[in-house]
């Protein structure tokens, strides 16, 4: 008996050790980004990236904030796209999912198949790209950052999974009281489905906020560049960093530009706030992921 207890405590120590190491491995790189952004540029080229800065400096942030136009523009674009996109997507998705969830409606099976089929078959990037650029002409507008993601089949099925739990009796009794389908949906179904709406809405917001794909394909104007695309462009070529910082009316001595630290400072400014927001919604997230994986 004694031997067993010892053995168990040793395994659990090993378990804690392994998970702690991996947890640190998940967190420390993020701390690195923050501390590099707060390091003096010269000490960086002397000593390399350090977890604790050899010489602390806020110069990179002063530099970025001296002409914050690009950062602010990109924040504006991303916030606008995320807000409009999430609301529109949530509304259209839940309406479609509700119809699909109504087993008493004979057409709902066909509609579900129409949605499902797009998950397993598409004709690739080129036809889709040509249609959007050559026929809809929405490239280089805010629309191209919003419309293609309004219906995501996976989200539709997630929503359907939630809505299918609503008892049909509720709908029938509303019908007897003379409520139309639209009225039932907006006045009864929506109010009782708030947790489901929160979960799916979170997925929509997350998707719009973190998206670089649509921007990379369709946006060439700096004034419409969303955050993630801005970050990519800064990483990809350093002249983009100077051009995005020079767009203010203050002229910048490029030779004095703190390349490495300013880059990391931009990364902190662009990615930081979300890192504090999303963990608060972790509970919804996990529920959505587990429900989605089982039902979807």
């Amino acid at each position: 008996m004694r031997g067993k207890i010892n053995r168990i405590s040793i395994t659990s120590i090993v378990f804690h050790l392994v998970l702690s190491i991996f947890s640190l491995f998940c967190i420390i790189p993020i701390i690195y980004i923050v501390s590099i952004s707060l390091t003096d540029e010269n000490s960086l080229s002397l000593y390399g990236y350090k977890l604790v800065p050899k010489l602390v400096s806020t110069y990179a942030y002063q530099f970025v904030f001296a002409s914050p136009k690009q950062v602010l523009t990109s924040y504006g674009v991303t916030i606008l796209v995320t807000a409009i996109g999430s609301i529109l997507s949530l509304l259209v998705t839940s309406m479609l999912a509700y119809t699909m969830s109504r087993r008493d409606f004979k057409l709902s099976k066909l509609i579900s198949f129409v949605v499902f089929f797009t998950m397993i078959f598409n004709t690739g990037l080129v036809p889709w790209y040509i249609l959007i650029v050559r026929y809809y002409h929405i490239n280089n507008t805010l629309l191209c950052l919003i419309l293609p993601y309004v219906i995501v089949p996976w989200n539709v099925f997630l929503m359907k999974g939630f809505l299918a739990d609503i008892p049909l009796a509720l709908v029938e009794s509303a019908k007897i009281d003379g409520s139309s389908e639209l009225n039932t949906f907006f006045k009864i179904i929506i109010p009782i489905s708030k947790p489901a709406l929160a979960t799916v809405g979170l997925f929509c917001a997350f998707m719009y906020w973190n998206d670089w794909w649509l921007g990379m394909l369709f946006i060439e104007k700096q004034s419409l560049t969303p955050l993630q695309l801005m970050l990519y462009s800064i990483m990809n070529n350093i002249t983009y960093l100077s051009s995005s910082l020079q767009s203010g009316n203050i002229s910048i001595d490029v030779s004095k530009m703190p390349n490495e630290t300013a880059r990391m400072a931009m990364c902190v400014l662009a990615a930081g706030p979300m890192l504090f927001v999303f963990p608060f919604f972790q509970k919804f997230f996990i529920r959505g992921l587990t429900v989605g994986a089982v039902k979807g």
Partner: protein
Amino acid sequence: MFKKNELIKDTIKNKGLLLLAIPGLLFLLAFNYLPMVGIIIPFKSIDFAKGIIRSDWVGFNNFKFLFSSGDIIRATTNTIISNLLFIIATLIISMAFAIMLFDMSRKAVKVYQTALFVPYFLSWVVISYIVYIFLNPDMGILNQFLKAFGSEAINWYSEPKHWRFILVIASLWKNAGYYTILYYTALMGIDSSYFEASDIDGATKFQQIKSISIPLLAPLIMLLVLLQIGRIFFSDFGLFYFIPKDSGALYPVTDVIDTFVFRSLKNNPDLGMTAAAGLYQTAVGFILVIVVNKITKKLNPDLAMF
């Protein structure tokens, strides 16, 4: 005929429901179904002056041209190898983590879960900054280590041989938390009386893992692996594009079908060839999904997608 009438009658009776579905269906039409007309693009020599429909047919020329260069073969190989490595690595690591978490108190689980889940919230663009901190040839952490131990610094972004491993690590870093939580949730769903009974019988932890946890998780493991195999022709574009910083020297191991198609679309005026690559990917992918689903249906009908 009678059935058709009934369907129409039912639809008219429930026109409110159809009305609710219409906006969503219109979006699907605009962004998913109309592009399917483009299935003819790879078989044409596209001339926008004439329009797509009236452009000349060229048969399979675009496909011949596509396969005449080795690039698409290389991209296909890379896609499959990387995906297989991801599937195996994720399965082993996430299962192990889930089993470890299962052994812990709720409080400890919460702490680890939060930490493991943090990378999942980051986009590949942000993760490319993190990888850069490790791999930057001048200031990067890895080269600092190598120099400290007297080794030569490595020019990471131009040496392909380490990249299969780097990509697996990056993929694990972002996704292990997600899969761990899926497996952990499934473990929590196992009837606790199994574990209690085996405790009474004096089973060790490892016997319990081997004889209870893993067999009862087998359906979920199979489902997730089959889903991943069904998508083995597709890859996580951001991982393969941003993490290697689209470095040409690394293409021998990092170029996958998705990045190949994207690059051709951006740099190559020959849309026919690019469209051929895209259709090749989705057609093979589609067949794979059908086959995988057939196999699933035979093994365990409950898990089949359709």
